[in-house]
């Protein structure tokens, strides 16, 4: 009998009941909750007179709607200017009180983007099943957890039953072997993967990222990669547990201590695919071929190397692809054949659940240190992923480096990733963004998003257009 994959092991460990119709009841260890997708779920429980099956399995924090401006933030929930946003945050507070869910409220130092907060607190752990009403929940797979996003009905279902009704997915291995060239980041790795397999490449699969590149990558880097599994079409992305994982988790507030720690580690060490495990699909990428990536279109798979060009419609004979390129070029205001480095920028956004952790901020700060933002860049926001990330960055003086370079230092929130608070792109503005989606209108009506790494966004803020960060840094 063939061995098991990491996904097989996590799945098998959580099956409560296998049903004849092919579905199974899967036990959920952790649910993360935020203000946008939870109100109707709590309301559903209230109407049905239900309680949470296990209140302590839930952890909440507001992130999507909270303002990133300090002046607005200082007023707490009551200070949120827009009514609908304020009401959503207030509602989360009230629901958490009523149902006994721990919440890191708006100005709690532990508040932040759910996918930054969970691992930071040790509230998401290896071997857990983790769900959240947010498609970027795969982030937690970086710790060797089985994590994915769900809709509001399933949020309610998981709250009430501690389970979800699911069908097992297929196994996909994306192996990146070799050594990354100097200056190449986890964001470049995942963008290059999405460019290769496409935004539907992982559909129906749970992706395991394997190979020497991920073994050598930090946990925060692995989070950046797993975060964007959904942009490759997969609900789930994960990396096997190793010593790096254990070192990251140890000592975090919610992580097990003493004897429980030892017991947990024994189990966690088994959370890797067996050598003879079989995958339904295997994709191999040579690490040496990856260079800094920039998206030019309105789908994350519309990505090019920094030394490349924006494609022309005539480069493909497929009529559907040609039409997609034409539409994207029109929306993005770009011309086929132009150099990526000729794309001029109006705005820079460094933040989001993909790239707002301390390593991201350190990397971006190293690029802008002692330099000045290009005058043509109207706004450059740096939005840390949590209050704790912000505090750490300030201890290291990163905030001062950003501010001295002309970038704005903001309060933790989802901010301009999806423009639910007041951080929005203007019509037609080009933005170098460290977020995860470049859909039309995502960052504001008519806004033009280019997805890049924090280093590339920082370099673009200084130059006013895309540049190869390796040239800037002399790598």
């Amino acid at each position, binding site marked *: 009998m063939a061995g098991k994959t990491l996904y097989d092991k996590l799945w098998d460990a959580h099956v409560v*009941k296998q049903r004849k119709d092919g579905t199974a009841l899967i036990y959920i260890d952790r649910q993360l909750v935020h203000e946008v997708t939870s109100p109707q779920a709590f309301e559903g429980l209230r109407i049905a007179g*239900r309680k949470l099956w296990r209140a302590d399995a839930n952890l909440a924090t507001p992130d999507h709607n909270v303002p990133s401006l300090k002046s607005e933030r200082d007023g707490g929930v009551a200070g949120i200017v827009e009514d*609908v946003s304020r009401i959503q945050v207030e509602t989360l507070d009230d629901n958490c009180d009523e149902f006994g869910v721990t919440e890191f409220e708006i100005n709690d130092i532990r508040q932040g983007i759910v996918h930054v907060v969970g691992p930071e607190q040790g509230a998401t752990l290896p071997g857990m099943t983790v769900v959240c009403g947010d498609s970027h929940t795969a982030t937690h797979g970086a710790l060797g957890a089985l994590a994915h996003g769900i809709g509001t*009905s399933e949020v309610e279902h998981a709250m009430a039953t501690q389970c979800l009704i699911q069908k097992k997915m297929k196994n996909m291995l994306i192996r990146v072997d070799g050594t990354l060239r100097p200056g190449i980041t986890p964001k470049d790795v995942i963008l290059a993967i999405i460019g290769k397999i496409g935004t539907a490449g992982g559909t129906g699969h749970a992706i395991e990222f394997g190979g020497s590149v991920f073994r050598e990558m930090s946990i925060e880097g692995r989070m950046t990669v797993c975060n964007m599994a959904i942009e490759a079409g997969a609900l789930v992305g994960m990396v096997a547990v190793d010593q790096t994982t254990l070192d990251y988790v140890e000592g975090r*507030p919610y992580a097990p201590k003493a004897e429980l*720690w030892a017991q947990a580690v024994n189990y966690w060490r088994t959370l890797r695919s067996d050598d003879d495990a079989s995958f339904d699909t295997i994709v191999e990428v040579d690490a040496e071929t990856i260079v800094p990536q920039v998206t030019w279109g309105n789908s994350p798979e519309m990505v090019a190397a920094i030394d490349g060009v924006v494609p022309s419609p005539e480069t493909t004979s497929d009529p559907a692809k040609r039409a997609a390129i034409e539409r994207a070029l029109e929306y993005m205001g770009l011309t086929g054949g132009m150099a990526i480095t000729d794309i001029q920028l109006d705005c820079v956004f460094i933040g989001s659940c993909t790239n707002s952790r301390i390593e991201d901020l350190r990397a971006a700060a190293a690029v802008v240190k002692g330099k000045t933002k290009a005058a043509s860049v109207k706004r450059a926001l740096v939005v840390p992923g949590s209050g704790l990330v912000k505090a750490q960055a300030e201890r290291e003086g990163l905030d001062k480096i950003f501010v001295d370079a002309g970038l704005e230092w903001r309060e933790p929130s989802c901010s301009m990733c999806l423009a639910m608070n007041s951080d929005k792109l203007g019509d037609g503005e080009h933005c170098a963004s460290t977020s995860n989606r470049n859909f039309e209108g995502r960052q504001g009506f008519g806004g033009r998003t280019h997805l890049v790494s924090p280093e590339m966004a920082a370099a673009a803020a200084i130059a006013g257009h895309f540049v190869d960060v390796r040239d800037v840094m002399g790598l």
Partner: protein
Amino acid sequence: MKKFTTVEGVVAPIDRANVDTDMIIPKQFLKSIKRSGFGPFLFDEQRYLDVGEPGMDCSDRPLNPDFPLNFPRYQGAEILLARDNFGCGSSREHAPWAIEDSGFRVLIAPSFADIFFNNCFKNALLPIVLKEDIVDLLFEEMYQEEGYSLTVDLARQVVVRPNGEEVLFEIDEFRKHCLVNGLDDIGLTLQDADAIREFEQSWQQRSPWLFNAGP
């Protein structure tokens, strides 16, 4: 979800075809973060003479005296009698939420729009399809008799008229099972509550650190 067995209730009319969900609950009320509280805004544009906004206190708003649901004789109605293609348009589940929140349990019409029809079952509402001539007859009887009531027996799948005559209706067996037992997805899963508890105990023994409430 509430269990549905038998409803004996006053019948109220929405006597027009192609009633869309925008009419049932206008767009401004979709800003709500709640699934409840839509009742006072049901048919808002027909029901009131002013323009409704979310959060309004509807008790002192000017009522449209020509709108049937405002007539004293239909107050407390639990059965809504309607015409063809009821619930067409937008998929908003706020429409069945508003109807249910207003005290209705049953809708009777010659036909319903698909999405609306599905949404009803998730909210303990029973939409019944009857032949057009029967619906015509029910409208006629209702208009003639103040306090006109029908009995709907889901177990036997019959609508009982005041004269005792019974009209059979069809319903999908699974949906009937869910309504009779008050089951939604969550309700169904909770039928396995023992299995969940059993798993949970064993899982806790194997992984006690997952049941440590935190710092």
